């Protein structure tokens, strides 16, 4: 980073902090799932942190994101509180969704996280709608829907891209191509060479980015966000990345045949986004080795604190079962 402007160092350190926070959060989640301390499915973002962190670093607090079942990384990158996120994994009343959503469905509307959707590409129309509101109200808010290579084959994805394009809506579609839809390679399911190539069909820019490089993700997203804020319409960014762990925790035991090799996994781990970014910080003189250890300790402490918060939080009470079904609830004798 030669000739870095003021603030750039802080930005780069913050991106490391966020990536570490996500990594430690998900490492903790793996342990919780293994010990069956929490219920339900856990989909980790380990290995993919640079995509959400680089992209969200370009956004303001009042910009919006949506995400998917791999739900922990996007909210933390956008500024969610790890205590409330962790409490939601535990199904506690203090969780983001008061125990109604769980690991796959985090949301924090107060910082523009409009929800992680369990159904592939289902949140893309929602994201486009938030962008429509931004345009109709003559605001400059931008929306990033995060979705995967699998979701890129859903009709909802294509309809959303076309709708955003014809109305020139401020959407930056960020596709996290982690190579596999559960166990099916995108090479077997995507007709184009790159998912980003599909942008041409919707008359919008499409770029393939090294999704292991947080700065590359940041730069590509920044350009697309600037375009969106200027009213020039949507863009598609395909971040090439990799999921180190199985689709969901415990799924490895259910596979009857392998779909990828250990060598492939090891190859990707050599370009892990966190050491890659640490090296860059050291080379640029933005941090000393001691600084990096300190940042890592902070992340660990934050997650320790989140675990404690979640464990000590109260369970939801039975009388909360019907809460939040409606804004104006229906009396029980009429439902």
């Amino acid at each position, binding site marked *: 980073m030669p000739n870095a402007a003021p603030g750039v160092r802080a930005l780069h350190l913050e991106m490391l902090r966020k990536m570490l926070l996500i990594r430690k959060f998900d490492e903790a989640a793996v342990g919780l799932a293994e010990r069956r301390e929490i219920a339900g499915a856990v989909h980790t973002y380990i290995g993919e942190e640079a995509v959400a962190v680089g992209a969200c670093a370009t956004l303001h607090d009042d910009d919006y994101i949506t995400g998917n079942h791999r739900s922990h990384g996007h909210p933390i990158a956008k500024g969610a509180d790890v205590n409330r996120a962790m409490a939601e994994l535990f199904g506690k009343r203090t969780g983001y969704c008061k125990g*109604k959503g769980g690991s796959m469905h985090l949301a924090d509307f107060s910082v523009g996280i*409009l*929800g992680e959707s369990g159904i592939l590409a289902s949140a893309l129309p929602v994201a486009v709608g*938030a962008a*429509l*509101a931004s345009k*109709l109200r003559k605001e400059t808010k931008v929306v990033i829907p995060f979705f995967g290579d699998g979701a890129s084959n859903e009709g909802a994805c294509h309809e*959303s891209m076309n709708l955003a394009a014809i109305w020139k809506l401020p959407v930056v579609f960020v596709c996290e191509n982690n190579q596999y839809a559960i166990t099916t390679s995108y090479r077997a399911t995507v007709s184009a060479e790159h998912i980003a190539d599909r942008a041409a069909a919707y008359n919008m820019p499409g770029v393939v980015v090294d999704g292991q490089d947080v700065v590359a993700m940041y730069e590509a997203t920044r350009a697309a966000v600037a375009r969106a804020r200027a009213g020039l319409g949507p863009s598609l960014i395909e971040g090439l990345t990799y999921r180190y762990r199985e689709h969901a925790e415990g799924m490895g035991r259910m596979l009857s045949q392998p779909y990828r090799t250990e060598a492939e996994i090891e190859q990707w781990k050599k370009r892990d986004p966190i050491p890659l970014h640490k090296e860059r910080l050291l080379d640029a003189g933005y941090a000393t080795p001691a600084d990096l250890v300190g940042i890592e300790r902070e992340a660990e402490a934050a997650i320790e604190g989140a675990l404690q918060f979640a464990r000590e939080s109260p369970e939801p009470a039975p009388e909360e079962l019907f809460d939040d*079904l409606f804004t104006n609830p229906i009396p029980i004798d009429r439902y």
Partner: protein
Amino acid sequence: MAEKTFAGALNEAIKEEMRADPSIFVMGDSARSGIYGVTGGLHEEFGDDRVLDCPASETAFMGAAVGAAAVGMRPIVSSQCAFMWVAMDQLVNQVAKMKYMFGGQATLPLVYRMGIAYGNSGAAHHTDRPHPLYMNIPGLKIVMPSTPADAKGLFKTAVRDDDPVLFFEDNTLMRVRGEVPDGDYTIPYGVADVKRKGSDVTILAIGGMVSRSLAAAERLEANGISAEVLDPRSLVPLDKGAILQSVAKTGRFVAVDSANKTCSFASEACALVAEEGFWSLKAPVQRVASLMVHPPFSPVLERLVYPTEDRIIEAVNRTLA
């Protein structure tokens, strides 16, 4: 009071609400040209930003309405039930579940105007009456008016509500005329309306089935049978109390529904009466609903499918046998 068509009353409701609240906008299939007249003149008055013609991408635009609502707009989505199927993921997974699953964070002031069509040789793809399916999904309010006056008052309630509403418009009623009160008024959900008083049998009917039930009641009257015709006006919330009260008085219950019979609104209403009003009953409850077959194109065959005055009268007679 002035006489207006069902479509005209809805059009008036939308215009008045849009004038009062700038966060309301209309989007949908050919919204600007105003098929059936409900959205007619809106584009002229409110302009491009408040009346949006959407591409034939029901998933995208029905879902986009959710996103716009989630950040504070109040969309009215115009479409037909025939096209809802392609957007089912959005209607079920986003519209109905978003608020609850995210712990109440989302507020979704949304109205989906859903035309239901039958009796015009649309054949199976254009002849859907799917309202009961949505009753099975928590998180949705479901309205189906039967008169122009009810349509206007209930539509205003729907637009002002902060929850998602599926507003089913029976297309067979669009040109029906009726007295509509002047100016601003609302009709709350969950309050049934007695369309005709009676003492021998309760006929519960919705949408286009109300006029058929009233016509049947006229013929029954000629035979000395006094039928009460009750219109719940909203299916969710449902005015259970009014239904049970009427049955307590008459002791006989017939539910008339344009939907397919199995798991219909009529089924749910009969279950309610059997469960909570059993000791008032003098005869078994009766469902008069569409036959369990797809509507055929042939007018000769199609007219066999839906409830008719004759079938309603036969059902009433079964309760009196």
